[in-house]
């Protein structure tokens, strides 16, 4: 713990960059895990892969392409560039409130306090010169929310590298898929211009095949959670949010292979994430990145496991005709629309409603929770529609907890636990 504090101080003093901090922190966690839980190493290896790749991108001759929102990462990879998902910074720092608060304060010199903490950290950290990475390109999308729609164009100007932006269609339909496919063609042109290379379809196929494998595995992991007792812990749902960053790399598949193996083993042993599963929790919003330990606590204290959440749950969209360019680009567009957070929050509320309904139909939860990040105003603004449906159709009252996924000053882990405890003891267990 003191080691992390020392590292934090170095970042605060400008002696260490966020990238170096993240790499050091991941290395530290891996070392501890090797000693205490070597069987769980697979959960950290993806982090190691990600952060080491970002740090060493230039050394490895890779152009670094920062991205925000959902973008076709397969294209970035096919041009031999390394995509860096900017939300990874606030995700990674969310357990270090000293750091997030510094960057949030820096951003709030310019933006309103109500702006999403993710965008504030990304912006504040860049303004503080703390990234430790220099992008060559920047690509972003007009999703997931108004905060990002304002933050990304501003960052485009501040970062000052060649940039490309997508206009995300509001609805998920054929028109939207065609619209995104057209824009992906424009993006390919942009990448060709700025990398000096032509698109190598075979390389793109490789990354599309990886993406297919990863999402197939993700689907299998999700299906395991339907089992009673649920074999996988709630914490892994939070980890699956990583998908956006490395969805087309084999390493993401390795994570899911590990998850699948662990889950299957638990089923074979007749065991669940909780020793005596009593409650299966549906998470309507689940952005407790700074307090993921709450999932473990809930499993121990109340025998309650989060079986599925409406953040990471994605269903299945696969590339089918890998030599059909238009078909692939349209699929890519549909996948962009189906990314975590974007799928349930960026369009009409009914998508979120359908997602939640699917969770209730397929995972048989008996507890409903909305652990809502205060920055996700669009999700909050449809929360009653969703929780009314749950009450009417499944007879379950929903617990609402407001929290800040990134800014630890907003609400402590203990306060969140307290609210969850009260709900279990006064409503669920009554």
């Amino acid at each position, binding site marked *: 713990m003191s080691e992390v504090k020392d590292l934090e101080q170095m970042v605060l003093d400008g002696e260490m960059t966020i990238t170096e901090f993240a790499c050091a922190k991941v290395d530290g966690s891996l070392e501890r895990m090797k000693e205490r839980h070597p069987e769980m190493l697979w959960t950290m290896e993806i982090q190691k892969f990600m952060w080491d790749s970002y740090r060493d991108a230039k050394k490895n001759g890779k152009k670094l392409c920062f991205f925000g929102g959902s973008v076709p990462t397969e294209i970035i990879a096919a041009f031999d560039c390394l995509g860096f998902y900017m939300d990874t910074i606030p995700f990674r720092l969310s357990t270090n409130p000293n750091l997030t608060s510094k960057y949030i304060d820096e951003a709030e010199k*310019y*933006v*309103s306090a*109500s*702006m*999403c903490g993710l*965008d504030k950290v990304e*912006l504040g950290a860049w303004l503080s010169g703390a990234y430790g990475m220099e992008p060559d390109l920047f690509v972003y999308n*007009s999703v997931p*929310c*108004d*905060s990002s*729609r*304002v*933050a*990304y*164009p*501003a960052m485009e*100007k*501040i970062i000052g590298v060649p940039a490309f*932006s997508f*206009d*995300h*269609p*509001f*609805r998920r339909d054929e*028109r939207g898929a065609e*619209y995104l496919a*057209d*824009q992906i063609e*424009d993006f390919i042109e942009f990448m060709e211009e700025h990398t000096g290379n032509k698109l190598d379809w075979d390389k793109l196929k490789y990354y599309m095949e990886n993406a297919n494998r990863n999402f197939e595995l993700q689907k299998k992991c999700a299906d395991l959670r339907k089992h009673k007792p649920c074999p996988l812990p709630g914490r892994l749902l939070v980890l699956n949010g990583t998908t956006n960053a490395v969805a087309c790399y084999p390493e993401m598949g390795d994570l899911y292979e590990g998850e699948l193996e662990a889950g299957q083993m638990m089923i074979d042993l007749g065991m669940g994430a909780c020793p005596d599963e009593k409650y299966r929790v549906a998470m309507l919003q689940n952005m407790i990145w700074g307090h993921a330990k709450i999932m473990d606590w809930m499993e121990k204290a109340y025998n309650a496991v989060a079986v599925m959440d409406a953040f990471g749950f994605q269903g299945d969209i696969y590339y089918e005709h890998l030599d059909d360019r238009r078909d692939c680009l349209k699929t890519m567009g549909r996948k962009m629309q189906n990314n975590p957070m974007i799928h349930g929050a*960026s369009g*009409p*509320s*009914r998508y979120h409603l359908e997602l939640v309904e699917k969770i209730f139909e397929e995972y048989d939860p008996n507890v409903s929770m909305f652990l*809502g990040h*205060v920055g996700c*105003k*669009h999700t*909050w*603004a*449809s*929360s*009653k*529609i969703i929780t009314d449906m749950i009450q009417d159709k499944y007879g379950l009252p929903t617990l609402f907890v*407001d929290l800040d996924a990134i800014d630890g000053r907003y609400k402590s882990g203990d306060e969140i636990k307290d609210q969850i405890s009260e709900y279990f003891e006064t409503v669920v267990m009554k």
Partner: protein
Amino acid sequence: MDYGKLFESDISSEAVKKWRQQGKKALGVICCHVPEEIFHAAGVLPVRMRATGCVDASEAEMWMSSFSCSFAKSVLQYWLEGRYELDGIVASDGCIMASRIYDNAEYINRTRNKGQTIIQIAAPRKHTARTVPFYVNELRDLIEALEEITGEKITEEKLKASVEVYNEARELIKELYELRKEKNPVISGVEALQITLSKTNMPIEEYIDLLKAFLEDAKNRKPQDSWRARLMIIGSALDDPEYLRVIEEKGGLIVTDALCFGQMQFREPIEMRDDEDVLTSIADYYLKRVVCPRMMDVHEELHDFIIQSVREFSCDGVIYQRMQNCECWGGENILLEKKLKDVGIPQITVEREQHMANIGQLAVRAEAFIEMVEKEV
């Protein structure tokens, strides 16, 4: 002609009632990315929805939570109360809050069997060769929906005629704003906002007649001569002239704005070109014009517009009001603050709630700002 109705900025359902009594439809419009010309061509009365005077949006807050912008909540509140007496709502995804007004209204309408027409169209957030055709298709869907509920065919000719009518209103508002460039203009900021707001209370033809009468009489009006500083107001949806009154009572004359309920909803006329259909001209116009930061590629243009307006209207400073939880405007200062500083334009940022909370604090801060910029004159 008595043009007093132009200054009635409270929400009135009088025009809606009259319109509907003729067997015609009146639909609420959420956000200014829904072209009213199309409604006009269909014989539908478009009523841009606002929430002037709303002091309690608690029922809407139950639907939209306390984390939503209070303007959006108040619009939903008035809709829930039936304040407008409309046949339904047409929304665009102007900002996510506008979308959620639609979502909640649609859900309530459906589950309570209210039988209203609730339509949503998507408006792209960039102006490019890709986005205009997409928006045209969305507008075609709107046309189809309006044709279905009215039984009226919206022809190219009808659309052209409607564009011409709305263009006339735009030209008249331009003339109105020209008056505000005078050293002692004949109109205050409160009155100007009342005029732009009152458009939502009547058919456009009536509005045009009243505007003409006002402009005709403008020379007879008493000039504003007791101001201490000339100000521009920018920011989130502001539909309450009383907010401006607080500033003007402290000596800050508001002479221009970048507000979606102010001049930004009018601006330049739609140019109809011979080489394209009128719907494409409309779509092109609505995506190209600068209204608010919901468009991702207009920030620089918006900033330039603000700076140019400050110069043209001889402003001493800018009041940047942002509604709490309005993220579109909430982040605008990232680049704007420095730009204004670089060209020596003083700016003050104030947080706002629809219900006129913190109005005492606004008065204090506005007065201090006016004193500061007054000295610089």
